[in-house]
């Protein structure tokens, strides 16, 4: 850990601490038993080995996957705010494929499901990419709007073509056993966690050791110089960065269906696409950092469930913590950029 890594770490830790202080204050002000709520939060996330494995880590996986995708996009300066929609659409694709591959050998079935999910995620962001490259539409808006369309699609799927056989609940049938990711021991933790770790490593190598990773960084920090002096095809780099981030968000959706829920229903995502933004930013776009922040925010979400259960605090409150974290990180860096020697969040440390 060099000195360059130290400063962002301190900022991150500080932002998290501030977020929690705010949460505690807010809870107290709202009349909740703040200590009870905070300890319920802790227990929900880290209270037991089982809590850690089956609640925290399980929730961390989609956050890590989407966050890694965002790391690619943000590094190139492309703002994919549509992770939510890409996740959902991929879940639809994963569910559909999962229902078809009953007779297949398990490894093949799982691969098919995950591949379909990644493809769906990439396709869902392909439209915004087209709009951006051909019409100059800001990808922020187009990816954002498609989130809502994705939600509508899920709603349609589970009340229509993919609805379970008895047509009672707005949910799909469970996918075939062959298409399900194996779990570890008796927990809910599935092999997706290994995949997440592998992807993080590959991405780190890619960012630090390849021309591809260098080009992403160059485009993100100086697209004009990258084009003129770097002779880099900026549009192609941006487009492919966005497509990859869509694919990884899609993978998250596939992993969720194939490893956790085994079926599709509404509100499948408690806002993973948005939380992943905080995950990526707090990790300063470092793939290994994303692993850490992903686990942390997974803990937050798991703890939130516990907090709701044991102390009656609505789980959705944690988005306030997430938002606070993002704002503080943004603030500190912006001040640092104008005042001190520092590196901006959309730039990578290694």
């Amino acid at each position: 850990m060099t000195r360059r890594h130290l400063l962002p770490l301190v900022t991150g830790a500080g932002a998290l601490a501030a977020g929690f202080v705010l949460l505690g204050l807010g809870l107290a002000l709202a009349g909740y038993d703040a200590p009870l709520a905070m300890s319920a939060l802790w227990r929900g996330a880290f209270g037991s080995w089982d809590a850690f494995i089956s609640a925290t880590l399980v929730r961390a996986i989609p956050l890590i996957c989407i966050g890694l995708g965002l790391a690619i996009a943000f590094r190139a300066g492309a703002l994919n705010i549509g992770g939510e929609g890409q996740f959902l659409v991929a879940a639809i694709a994963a569910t559909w494929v999962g229902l078809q591959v009953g007779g297949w050998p398990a490894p093949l079935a799982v691969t098919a499901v995950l591949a379909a999910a990644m493809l769906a995620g990439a396709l869902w962001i392909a439209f915004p990419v087209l709009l951006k490259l051909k019409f100059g539409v800001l990808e922020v808006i187009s990816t954002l709007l498609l989130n809502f369309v994705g939600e509508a699609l899920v709603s349609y799927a589970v009340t229509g073509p993919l609805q379970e056989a008895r047509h009672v609940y707005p949910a799909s049938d469970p996918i075939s056993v062959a298409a399900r990711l194996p779990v570890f021991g008796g927990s809910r933790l599935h092999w997706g966690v290994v995949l997440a770790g592998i992807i993080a490593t590959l991405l780190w190598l890619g960012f630090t050791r390849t021309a591809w990773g260098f080009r992403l960084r160059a485009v993100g920090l100086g697209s004009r110089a990258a084009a003129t002096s770097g002779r880099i095809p900026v549009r192609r780099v941006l487009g492919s960065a966005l497509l990859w981030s869509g694919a990884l968000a899609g993978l998250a959706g596939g992993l969720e269906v194939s490893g956790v829920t085994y079926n599709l229903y509404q509100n499948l995502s408690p806002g993973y696409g948005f939380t992943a933004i905080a995950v990526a930013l707090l990790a300063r776009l470092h793939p290994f950092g994303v692993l850490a922040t992903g686990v942390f925010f997974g803990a937050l979400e798991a703890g939130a469930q516990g907090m709701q259960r044991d102390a009656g605090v609505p789980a959705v409150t944690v988005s306030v913590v997430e938002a606070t974290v993002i704002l503080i990180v943004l603030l500190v860096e912006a001040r640092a950029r104008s005042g001190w020697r520092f590196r901006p969040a959309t730039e990578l440390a290694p």
Partner: protein
Amino acid sequence: MSEAPALELRGIVKSFGSVQALRGADFVLAPGEVHALLGENGAGKSSLLHVANGMFPPDGGEIRVNGQRVVLHSPGDARSLQIGMVHQHFTSIAALTVAENIALSAGSHAARQGAFKRVSERALAPKLRADELSVALRQRLELLKALATGPRILLLDEPSAALAPSEIEALLAEVRQFAREGGSVALVTHKLPEVFAAADRVTVLRQGETVLHGEPVSTQTDVTLAEAMLGASGRGATPHDQNRRAGQVGAEVARIDDIVIRSGELIGVAAVEGNGQRELLRAVAGVERPGPGRVRVTPGTVGFIPEDRTTEGLIPELSITENFVLGRDHDPLWSRRGRIDWGAARRHTSTIIQEFEIRASGPDAAVRTLSGGNQQKLVLARALHARPSILVAENPTRGLDIRATAELRRRLQEAADAGVAVLVYSADLDEVIELGERVLVVYRGRVSEAPAGADRQTVGRLMLGVGT
């Protein structure tokens, strides 16, 4: 003189970081006169005007307006003291109309509206958007904007930089008119002809100090002024010494229209802004696409030094090494099959840093910590390291001080001596004539070649299409 000077700057000292721009400069502007402030690039003329305009507080010295000591905290303060400034670079807003630009400068106070009305009547095309204007009209807009606040002191910072000789005439006429109506004008320039054409008195700055204090122009000559500007060994711009290096010119490496460019030549390109020289040169550099068939380049590496080094040449947030690799991320020196060996890249960069004497803390320093001159050296070093057959440079000495400028010119010459075909476009006509063993002129997108040994007047006329 019985009345107090309109503007008086005494003993102004100002440093920017480690660079000392002004070391106790004096300038005294009498009412109703046009007073030229002369000096080489980097002598401190612009800095002195900026101090007078309230943009930077001086580190030392005092400012007096109409005899009263004043302290200026902002251009707003200067404005309220009836000091107006015309900047070197266009500050009008492209999307707003001429009238809107003038109204904006006039300010919100109703009192200013009187001056605004008078000035807007002189605007030639009030409803046109600023970016639809020609360069000369845009410069005129700058002047009108400054006049809109009803100033009595006008500070002009190299107002003719982008204009052709006859357009400069028109501008100077306006300036003289302003002085005749009672205003005082400080005219910053580094062009001697303007001084004789328009000014009553002249002050010369050299390296941040005043070396000639407000002498009447009638007592000065080309020679005396040049000597003051450049020091004892100063001369005006003389055309490139044709005898310097005959017989080392090589094979053809490029062709623009029917003009041939050979390896080892140092060619200057002269043009008034907006005549298509940028597009043509960038086509040679492979950065832009030319019109069909106009530019032919024999296959090979072409180096490019863009005009704006911080947005097009370098990425300031990245390190020197990373910037060095920019554009060559597949070079076998540090790359194999898409992977980059940063250790090797760093080593090569360190060698370059030494070879080109780039002042930096190391190959990992961020480029934004380098001075302008060192940044430009990096851009040049990177371009040359790829062993190009052609090197295209756009205004390579822009914004550099005298020493950096001289060094860069020397390195360009060395590159040519080593066999690279060097094409240099500079908005500074004198630089083009001095550097280039051949001079190409671009007018309305068409290229022609000036006769060997052509002087300023000849080239200037070609730039305006006179006599073609």
